């Protein structure tokens, strides 16, 4: 069965990414215009734009199942791509699409439910003999039960949301006294984020590496893996930089972990693209953590080292095609690194810094790939994630990729919000990072500062402050009378004033 028109139930860079592959395959796309970002970049690239700006509902349309189905029907879309986040891992949404004779570009509702729910996934993994951190049998009902399980498996433990993902609803507990507070926080956060307050407990593996395997499966029962991604550079369980492959894996370990990743996917008859996440400890023991039943933010690094377009594979699988690749066809070539350039204040603990992107220049070298959903003039709005662009660089090996990454980072020019650029510019020069000596605790434990600045840079900034002071205080006519209201003034007004000098 051929897909002719895809409704993209998402926004931002992933919407742009899906449109790109759909067009390559001569498939039309439908995008949804919202009042929050009526001029978003992805809208200009879709074939059909459904105007939903009149929708005044509290729930964003990308989370509104009924509405999305209605839009799909109205726009005669025969398939829906959910992207990541929003409803990407919602089994009910996938089922609703099927009920309305719309192809859901993703796994079966049954697989989403089983493997997406972490407690169910744990049971499946346990039954198939997959290595896993010790933990609760299922969900836990209160902090007392949590304490009693923690006593058994030993502190520290981690509380996780059963329906979780993306680091939300997770809390580490090191002492019984902290349990009550953390249990409540995790459960509340889980309810808010996933509409399901249930949580479970696992032994917390200290200072592991986060290694995940890309899976592809078709509806004929073929399942392969596309190698691993190294995603240990995280803060608050949110990934910042990803690589493929990982320097921590030998060819033998890659084979073992890959085989087990495929085994987990097979246990739920998985099809489409998916990701099996593992923790790897310092003795190279690995533990199954969870499986994500969607395309990942960091999928481009796998695409670069395998040469396979994962969105295209998702669409082909959804059309019922058999995988063209067998496991032995998959060869990893070169090295890829992805930096997530977000609108965040690195100096304030990566706090979001939404705002309007005033200027945006990104490198266009042949060894750089940029996935972005914004352009100069776009706004990073507080209601969505803080992603500006993914800077993906390749090299023939890790050293080469790092060298290219350094060059590319210096070419990025963004004005309008604070960004994670200072963090990456520091990271690619950090000796431990360069040596591959880092774990998920790297940002919190190994770094004194999340950025580096040279003496000269600070001096030049001081020079500018002094210049402004002189202009404002020592000139005959104060440049602006609204100087007193400095605090309320937009930096862009100040910017204009600099231009007058």
């Amino acid at each position: 069965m051929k897909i002719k028109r895809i409704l993209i139930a998402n926004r931002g860079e992933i919407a742009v990414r899906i449109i790109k592959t759909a067009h390559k395959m001569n498939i039309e796309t439908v995008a949804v215009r919202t009042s929050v970002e009526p001029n978003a970049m992805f809208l200009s690239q879709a074939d059909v734009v459904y105007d939903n700006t009149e929708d005044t509902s509290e729930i964003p349309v990308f989370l509104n199942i009924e509405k999305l189905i209605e839009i799909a029907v109205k726009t005669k879309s025969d398939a829906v791509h959910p992207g990541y986040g929003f409803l990407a891992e919602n089994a009910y949404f996938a089922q609703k699409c099927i009920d309305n004779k719309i192809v859901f570009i993703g796994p079966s509702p049954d697989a989403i439910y089983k493997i997406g729910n972490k407690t169910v996934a744990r049971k499946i993994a346990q039954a198939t003999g997959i290595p896993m951190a010790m933990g609760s049998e299922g969900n836990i009902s209160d902090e007392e039960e949590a304490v009693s399980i923690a006593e058994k498996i030993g502190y520290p433990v981690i509380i996780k949301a059963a329906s979780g993902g993306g680091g939300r609803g997770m809390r580490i507990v090191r002492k019984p006294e902290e349990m009550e507070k953390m249990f409540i926080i995790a459960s509340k956060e889980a309810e808010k984020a996933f509409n399901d307050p249930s949580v479970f407990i696992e032994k917390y593996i200290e200072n592991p590496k986060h290694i995940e395997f890309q899976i592809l499966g078709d509806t004929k029962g073929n399942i392969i893996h596309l190698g691993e991604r190294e995603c240990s550079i995280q803060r608050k369980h949110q990934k910042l930089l990803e690589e493929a492959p990982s320097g921590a894996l030998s060819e033998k370990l890659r084979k073992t972990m890959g085989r087990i990743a495929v085994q987990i996917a097979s246990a739920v008859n998985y099809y489409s693209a998916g990701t099996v996440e593992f923790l790897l400890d310092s003795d190279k023991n690995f533990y199954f953590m969870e499986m994500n039943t969607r395309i990942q933010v960091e999928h481009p690094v796998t695409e670069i080292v395998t040469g396979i377009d994962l969105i295209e594979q998702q669409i082909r699988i959804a059309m019922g095609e058999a995988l063209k690749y067998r496991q032995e066809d998959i060869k990893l070539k070169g090295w890829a690194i992805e930096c997530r350039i977000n609108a965040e204040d690195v100096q304030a603990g990566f706090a979001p810094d939404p705002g309007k992107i005033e200027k945006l220049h990104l490198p266009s070298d042949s060894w750089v790939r940029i996935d972005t959903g914004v352009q100069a003039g776009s706004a990073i709005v507080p209601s969505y994630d803080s992603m500006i662009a993914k800077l993906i660089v390749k090299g023939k090996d890790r050293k080469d990729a790092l060298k290219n990454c350094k060059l590319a980072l210096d070419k990025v020019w963004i004005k309008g919000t604070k960004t994670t650029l200072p963090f990456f510019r520091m990271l690619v020069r950090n000796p431990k990072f360069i040596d591959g000596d880092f774990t998920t605790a790297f940002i919190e434990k190994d770094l004194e500062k999340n950025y580096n600045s040279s003496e000269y840079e600070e001096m030049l900034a001081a020079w500018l402050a002094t210049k402004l002071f002189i202009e404002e205080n020592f000139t005959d006519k104060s440049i602006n009378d609204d100087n007193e209201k400095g605090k309320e003034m937009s930096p862009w007004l100040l910017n204009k004033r600099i231009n007058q000098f």
Partner: protein
Amino acid sequence: MPTSKPGIKKLYALSSENKRFCFPQPLKHSIRIGKREYEVKLKSDDKYGTYILWKNRKYPVEVVSSRQNRYEILFNDISYTFTVETPFSMQRMKVINAARGKTEKETLKAPMPGKIIDVLVREGSNVLRGEPLVILEAMKMQNEIQSPVNGQIIKVLAKPNSNVMKDDILVEIKVE
């Protein structure tokens, strides 16, 4: 435009880490490194916005905020805060600081705009450094706002389910 003031021969920019940068007044458009003077140019155009040109390289700059003599400058995407002082105000500041002694009240401010999900302490609570005091939700993440010091809560201004702006005071702590 006259940019000098008679009598003041130099100005100091003090960083938040108390580093002192001294510049001659009137300000030169160059900075000396070792024996060489390097030209500093402040420029602006449509393509790049405002930038500083130094040693043949463009650095993006921005004034994030300016309040009296206090400036937050974004230079090459890194933020620096300076207070600019004249030799006279510098002297006066030293005297005032010596008289006042060390501050012993710590105010905890919202690091970002968001919604207060929970307040975990009340007035009179004793808290330890690093202890979570307030849960603030911003951009779909719940953030623990932790106590920067050991001390006692003297005032709680954060209210659950209320929205706060960046830098709104959440809690005041008496430092112990």
